[in-house]
């Protein structure tokens, strides 16, 4: 459901992708963003996101 993504320049995770019905939603690490709040709630419920792909 959620997958982390890495910044290919910094090699640091800097965003979250949520997939639903084939639509990909990029979510920022912003505590005021309600999609990010929903992600944190989902993690708090014991879920784990898919790790980010490693750069080629």
């Amino acid at each position, binding site marked *: 459901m959620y997958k982390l993504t890495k910044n*290919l*320049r910094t090699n640091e995770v*800097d965003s979250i*992708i949520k997939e639903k019905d084939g639509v*990909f939603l*990029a*979510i*920022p690490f912003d505590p*005021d*963003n309600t999609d990010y709040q929903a992600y944190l709630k989902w993690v708090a419920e014991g879920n784990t996101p898919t790790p980010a792909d490693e750069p080629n």
Partner: protein
Amino acid sequence: MAGKLIVDTIDTDNAFITLNVQQSQIATMNVSGIYSNTGVKMIGANGTVSNTAITGLVTASQIANVANTQLTGTITGSQISSNTLSNTVFQTGSVENYMNAQGLGFGMRNRIINGAAVIAQRGTTFSGLSDDGGQYTLDRWKWAENGTFTGVQTVTQDTSAPAGFSYSLKVQTTTAVAVATSLSCRVEQFIEGFNWADMGYGTANAKTTTLSFWVRSSLTGTFGGAFRNSADDRSYPFSYTISVADTWEQKSITIAGDTSGTWIGATNGTGLRVTFSLGAGTALSGTAGAWVAAGTQSVTGAVSVVGTLNATWYVTGVQLEKGSTATSFDYRPYGTELQLCQRYFYRLVNASASTGYVPNITGVRYTANEVYLGITCPAPLRTTPSISKSGTMYIYSGGTNITLGGVVAVTSNYNSYTSCPNVRVTATSITSNTGWICEFDINAYFDISAEL
């Protein structure tokens, strides 16, 4: 001269009476008491002036002052006929001063955005709404549910509306479900703290608040809703009655502001939730008319729209304002209303009939497999948005046209005054470091959401 004039007592030390009474100005004058040269102290034996006692013109010099409490009754509509108050009846600023003293505003009174259901950036039909936590529909209006929700509803922008309005938000139940204890569904709007802080909720200065709206339903009876805080631990259930099926009715609900609890102040968080319940279980229902330390969403025993297959519920003309009076709907220019919505959601779409250049996106190479797109939004966003992409898009430069893949990340230079989010999107063979323009196929779009 018609009628008669009787002088009953005269101040003999300063016996001085000047009468300048013209025919028809005073039909009957019954005077008693002592009079000075400053004017009449009392008119009529019982101190009243009947409707027809003065038929002529009373000029400003005839009545020097009327003390605050001289008019104790009601001046009915027929006492002052239309278009008879001259420009000087109210001194400049008198009405404004009164409104200000009462804490009432003139412009932008309505804290609800898109209360007339006019703005529909996401589309006009949202079907299959069910157990997914909720979804925004018409701008600023969220359909939401609690619990394991098995009912299904459709929200549409409908042209059924009362006089003065063009659209309404319509909900129709396509799969009915009985509302279990902790189950609910609803239509609601979250009001940003910056637009609510002056109401003083959570303090001793909490302001009286009035919600008004037009509503119709295929069902009749008592319906419910609630005002709720962001933490959902303070709520005020309210009820309203729909008397006749499929007929527009206007409702008004006035509540005392909440002096307790924690309410977000002047921030970009949720200042207030305004909830119209479409069905709520007993755990989420309460008694109308009082603040409670719980997250109730409706009133006990309210009609359940989701409980009846094909039941409909419409709303429009929703207004939430300071004060105890529901004033006329605060019509705002379309462009203003649209920009108010776009602080929370912006669909950047190619609505033309062909693939086209999108002027408010520029791209640069980020890596060989990613392009970095900067988007200029029409309104400052509430916060860093989430961004999704739909349809086929391209970047173009120097005769090279590259198809974009999926969104990878979103960042923003957000602050309180500007917002130009940046989104990284996959692509291939981005070998050039030149700038890129962006093109969308027909109906391709980015959804940029900073909703509450």
